């Protein structure tokens, strides 16, 4: 399938879609007008698809500078009467939280959907937060799809619900839904309105205390009404497998695992699938509890619904056992799978569940951690900095490497080991400020171009104003790399694929008043090392911008142009000093069984930085 087909495939057709792609089709079928995001896995492919089709679809799409801005863009569009869609990874909602909370208070006019892609098991995230709790904190209706078809269908439903109650709607997916592919039956695409009109109404849109006290009350009234809808909604359904001993309350991915285990083992249970799960449909769940002997709650990450079920049991003074996370029937941490559900069920059902022979190996298996790609400019930056540190005889243990969310954090691996602290987007500089005040150690903060625009500017202002002694390295690879290569304000293209003003990082840094500012192409190792030496000795805020396109960009450009440069090692010149292997460590360079060092031509991207590293000049272009 080609991404374009998400737009061009007709009503009645079907596509094998990723959950994220299904969200795009759902938004189009729901007549969306404005779409905004800041890239974050597991939600990234939604943006990748809009980037490719927005212009043709007549939808406005942008990669905003961060999630809070993205939310505000969609919020304003909805206030102007347009349907809007903003999506982000779960921790992105933390960045957006301030405006998110208030948007639920003010409400909307056009339908607005906020999609949070949670990441149980933290495949590409720093934490495992469950944003169903965010729904409760904000007081926003919550939809939990279990597969791509539901993702698509819920988009349309969400817009309608949002408009009916003039409230944004939160959709919570998880990695296994976002990155699950399934057969999706398509509906018709509705063209959204091109422009809206904002009708002034400060009592609704200005959260001054006098108004927000009224908004708070109104929100509670809305939620009571929406709860009635959730109670009767066909989205919440009972699957009766012909028994009443055990009733299972479940949602999202957990529902899929429950269904597969129940079907395979032919278990006589009753299942309540909650898709419209907040406001929690109390009456529906109460009736369900009353119809079974005991209850199991199967949900991914926190015991959110389990506590709701327990509250109902307490409120109505019911004497029934509730199994779930709180009593240890199911684990509290990490993503579920059919095996975990099966093990949990074994503890509470009488039937014998299918058990299979389980193989394992005692052989050592090679570690394959994610690495900086061959040709990655961050490797050159890291290598040159490491060399400068060595030349200045600075002690490694006294240096604090404050890293950030981006590919350069992969320099945490040996041999670089250049990540000592990393907590959130943009944190490297703020954390650097703190260490600069709290210690006499040398502080080096790493941040990427996109991350700098996202949340790096204000801590840099802080560093300058508070006279901190830090070196900030801005690794500008001309792309938002780690999420797969999206545009950002530093490149001359916007989210629609149209030409756009390129925001200069150097001008921002100079404008803020950093003491030393240098921009360098890190692929020139010698010059880069010299600049780092100067910057490391500078007292105050020194900023070095290492600017070179991501290898994903250069590889694609070279492929297009038919350029294929590969490097090779001249075995007669090679002294096997192993600097290229042990100190530089490009995945393309490896040691052969006979001890010789070689370059894998399939992996080599021809950047040539290794040739500068070799003291014997043994690395040369392959003829």
């Amino acid at each position, binding site marked *: *399938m080609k991404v374009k087909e998400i737009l061009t495939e007709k009503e009645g057709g079907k596509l094998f879609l990723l959950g994220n792609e299904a969200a795009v089709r759902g938004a189009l079928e729901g007549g969306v007008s404005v779409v905004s995001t800041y890239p974050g*896995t*597991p939600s990234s492919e939604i943006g990748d698809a809009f980037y490719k089709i927005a212009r043709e679809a007549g939808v406005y799409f942008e990669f905003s500078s961060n999630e809070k801005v993205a939310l505000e863009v969609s919020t304003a569009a909805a206030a102007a009467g347009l349907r809007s869609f903003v999506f982000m990874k779960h921790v992105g909602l933390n960045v957006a939280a301030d405006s998110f909370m208030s948007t639920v208070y003010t409400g909307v006019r056009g339908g607005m959907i906020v999609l949070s892609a949670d990441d149980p098991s933290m495949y590409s995230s720093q934490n495992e937060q469950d944003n169903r709790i965010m729904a409760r904190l904000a007081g926003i209706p919550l939809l939990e799809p279990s597969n791509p078809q539901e993702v698509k269908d819920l988009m349309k439903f969400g817009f309608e619900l949002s408009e009916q109650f003039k409230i944004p709607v939160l959709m919570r997916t998880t990695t296994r839904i976002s990155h*699950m592919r399934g057969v999706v039956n398509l509906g018709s695409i509705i063209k959204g309105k091109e422009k809206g009109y904002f009708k002034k109404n400060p009592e609704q849109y200005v959260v001054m205390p006098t108004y927000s006290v009224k908004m708070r009350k109104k929100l509670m009234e809305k939620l009571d009404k929406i709860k009635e809808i959730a109670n009767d909604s066909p989205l919440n359904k009972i699957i009766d497998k012909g028994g009443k001993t055990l009733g299972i309350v479940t949602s999202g991915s957990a529902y899929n*695992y429950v269904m*597969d285990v129940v079907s395979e*083992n032919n278990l006589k249970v009753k299942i309540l699938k909650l898709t419209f799960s907040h406001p929690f449909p109390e009456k529906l769940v109460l009736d369900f509890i009353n119809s079974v002997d005991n209850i199991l709650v199967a949900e991914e990450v926190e015991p959110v619904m389990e506590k709701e079920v327990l509250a109902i049991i307490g409120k109505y003074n019911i004497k029934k056992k509730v199994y779930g996370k709180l009593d240890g029937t199911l684990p509290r941490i990490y993503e579920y799978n*059919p095996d975990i559900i099966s093990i949990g069920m074994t503890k509470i059902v009488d039937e014998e569940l299918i058990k299979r022979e*389980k193989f394992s190996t005692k052989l050592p298996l090679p570690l394959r*951690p994610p690495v900086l790609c061959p040709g990655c400019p961050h490797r050159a930056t890291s290598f040159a900095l490491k060399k400068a540190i060595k030349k200045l005889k600075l002690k490694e243990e006294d240096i604090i490497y404050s890293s950030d969310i981006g590919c350069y954090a992969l320099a945490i691996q040996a041999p670089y080991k250049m990540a000592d602290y990393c907590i959130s987007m943009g944190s490297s500089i703020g954390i650097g400020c703190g260490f600069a005040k709290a210690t006499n150690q040398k502080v080096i903060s790493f941040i990427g171009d996109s991350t700098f625009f996202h949340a790096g500017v204000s801590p840099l202002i802080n560093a300058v104003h508070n006279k901190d002694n830090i070196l900030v390295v801005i690794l500008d690879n001309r792309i938002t790399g780690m999420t797969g290569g999206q545009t950002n304000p530093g490149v001359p293209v916007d989210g629609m694929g149209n030409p756009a003003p390129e925001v200069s990082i150097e001008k921002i840094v100079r404008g803020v008043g950093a003491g030393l500012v240098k921009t360098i192409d890190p692929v020139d190792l010698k010059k880069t090392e010299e600049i780092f030496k100067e910057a490391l000795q500078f007292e105050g805020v020194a900023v070095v911008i290492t600017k070179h396109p991501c290898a994903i960009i250069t590889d694609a450009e070279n492929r297009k142009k038919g350029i294929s440069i590969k490097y090779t090692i001249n075995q007669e010149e090679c002294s096997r000093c192993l600097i290229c292997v042990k100190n530089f460590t490009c995945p393309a360079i490896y040691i052969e069984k006979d001890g010789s060092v070689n370059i894998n031509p399939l992996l080599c991207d021809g950047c040539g930085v290794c040739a500068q590293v070799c003291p014997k000049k043994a690395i040369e272009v392959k003829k």
Partner: protein
Amino acid sequence: MSKESDRGEKMKNIYEIQLIGVGGQGTVKASTIVGEAAMKKGLNVVMSEVHGMAQRGGAVVTELKIGEAHSPLIEEGAADLLISFEPTEALRSLNKVGRDSFVIVNSSPIVPFTVSLGISEYPELSSVFEELKAKINNLLVIDAQKIAKEAGNIISENMVLLGAAIATPEFPVDKDLVIQSMKENLPPKSIKTNLKAFESGFVKVKKGGKSIGI
């Protein structure tokens, strides 16, 4: 598809495939081709794929369930077919297969940088295959790299393995639908090479039966 085997006493109406490889080998592409072909046949199909940090250099796992499945994740020991794009990765997926599963393994190793750095170990290839042979009745070891090279491009390794998979008994999707799906998912300029690679993998298994490889 429906069978009673020693892997489970009860009827199983779902065909489950795990694919494992290293980032860049085309694992996700091969899986998508199978999934779309299954959809064309009118079957239900769900698939789980990997995106994000692991894409380059890391182990990439995809799981496919064809039939009336809800979740795309395969229970331990339940895979009908494992396609491993790299020898040691087959061992990493050993928990998903049973004695009677079909296991197709590419014999070309990819040694990660951690081995050169001395922080991890790559086992002897012969011991990897011995271990697999001892546990799996239907083991097919294929030099997909060599076959792909002969077909015209080493990049087509994934299609060699896909061709081999289609040739295994019980594979639930027809060859012509897979070929149609390949044409829709691969760049037009490389389709000839890819089809050649696919056909070579197919023939290799059809001719060799259960005994190819070791």
